């Protein structure tokens, strides 16, 4: 999944989509995932890095990640 290139994310987790003018807030983990996506990391890489760094099992994180990615695409923040 690829984020739209013009999406801006601040350090505090504030996201701005210049195409629509819509703003969003992210929690800490959401912000980290978004940064990883911006770096072009694959879903597999994100899962592996997250489960290593955070106190979460793979099954739970995978489920949460795909839910989160679906929300990004629901808000049209990803490239088609």
């Amino acid at each position, binding site marked *: 999944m690829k984020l739209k290139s013009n999406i801006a994310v601040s350090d505090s987790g504030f*996201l701005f989509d210049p195409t629509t003018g*819509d*703003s*969003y*807030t*992210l*929690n*800490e*983990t*959401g912000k*980290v*995932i978004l940064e990883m996506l911006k770096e072009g990391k694959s879903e597999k890489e994100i899962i592996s890095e997250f489960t290593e*760094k*955070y*106190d*979460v099992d793979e099954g*739970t*994180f995978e489920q*949460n*990640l795909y*839910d*989160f990615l*679906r*929300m*990004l695409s*629901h*808000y049209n923040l990803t490239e088609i």
Partner: protein
Amino acid sequence: MEKLKYERPVINKINAGTPDKFGMNTRVKVIDEIDGVKVSELLKKYGSPLYVISEKTVRDNYKDAYRAFSNRYPKVQFAWSYKTNYLDAVCRIFHDEGSWAEVVSGFEYDKALSNGIPGGQIIFNGPDKSDEDLLKAIDNSSFIHIDHFDELYSIIRLTKNTNKKAKVAIRVNMDTGIYPQWDRFGFNYENGEAWNAINRIMLADNIDLVGLHTHIGTYIMTPQPYYVAASKLSELAVRTHKKYDHAIKYIDMGGGFASKNTLKGAYLPGKDTCPSFDDYADAITNAILNSEIKPDNLPVLFLETGRALIDDAGYLLGTVLANKRLANARRATIIDIGVNLLFTSFWYQHEIYPAKECSNVTEDTTIYGPLCMNIDIIRDAVQFPVLQKGDHVVIPRIGAYNMTQWLQFITLRPNVVLIDNDKNVNIIREKETLEAFKNLEKIPGHLNGK
């Protein structure tokens, strides 16, 4: 290396809605213990979901209510409204504090007797009293609150050939300026039915009119209607005394005091808007004291408030079963507490809190119960913290009506525990079993072959 604390990733769209002066809560409230007992330990030991009652809160609430009325009026007697919560342990706490029993069926009447309450301390309300119930109440010198003329004539018939007098009051309904006006119970004041009933009783041989009763409605959010109601009952008492030289011994103002829960559609939370016991007490006692009733004949003031005394003392603990997305991508959380256990969710916006510390990030969420029924919705829309499957939740203020109006529907009812003043946890109603449930069923012979 110690791993970082994880929270489910969340993205929330910022909607510039109409601003209001109240703003949003920026912190998520957590209820992780009740009277010093950890929620997680309660659920681990007694299963989920779980009803919890705080004995301390019950007693504190009772004392607060009693203080409010007895500071303003010399003769006050509370009667515990059985239908609000008739678990024996709960009733016995109220009886221990000095409450009599207020019952509305033969079943509740027998339950009160089995809790050690003498018949002379039972108020028998409601439209459904069989001849057998009435005879028992007459025999035990209970106070029968007459709901309709059919009941009055039943009592006249039943007492004709006895030497025992029935002690009765009539229930009076009236216009107190509120909507809806409850006119289905008792005799109407304005159209003269209540006065007719009093006259008929005064002419009967074996019936002693000892009281006047009203119960103006439920969840009354302003004290003023109680002033009107108490004034009208006082007026009837004065009129009875004038005509028959008969002093009414008590005025029973019923219940209907609001608890701190928030009704659906209310703009402000109930805890900010509902009157205190002092507000209600002011209205009621002022009306009686300012009436024409002579000081020597001042009646005992009976109160049957249920909800306002027990709601705060009850908690429902549960567990998140699943998170999902609805068609419009809205968050839905399914918990193991359904409308079968939380009947009051049909009219309250129940507060619901996590049982452990979590971040202040929330999502617009619909909270469903576990039932395979579309109506099983605990909250339509609530800003809810980011919980995962297995996390615990606490719903406070559920002590009134949920443990009597609960439904054995789809699943069995769980344990009910009481945390006593020494922080001991006591099971006061065991979780139901399939065996106990099936014991009531009978299978006809032709279906019993295999």
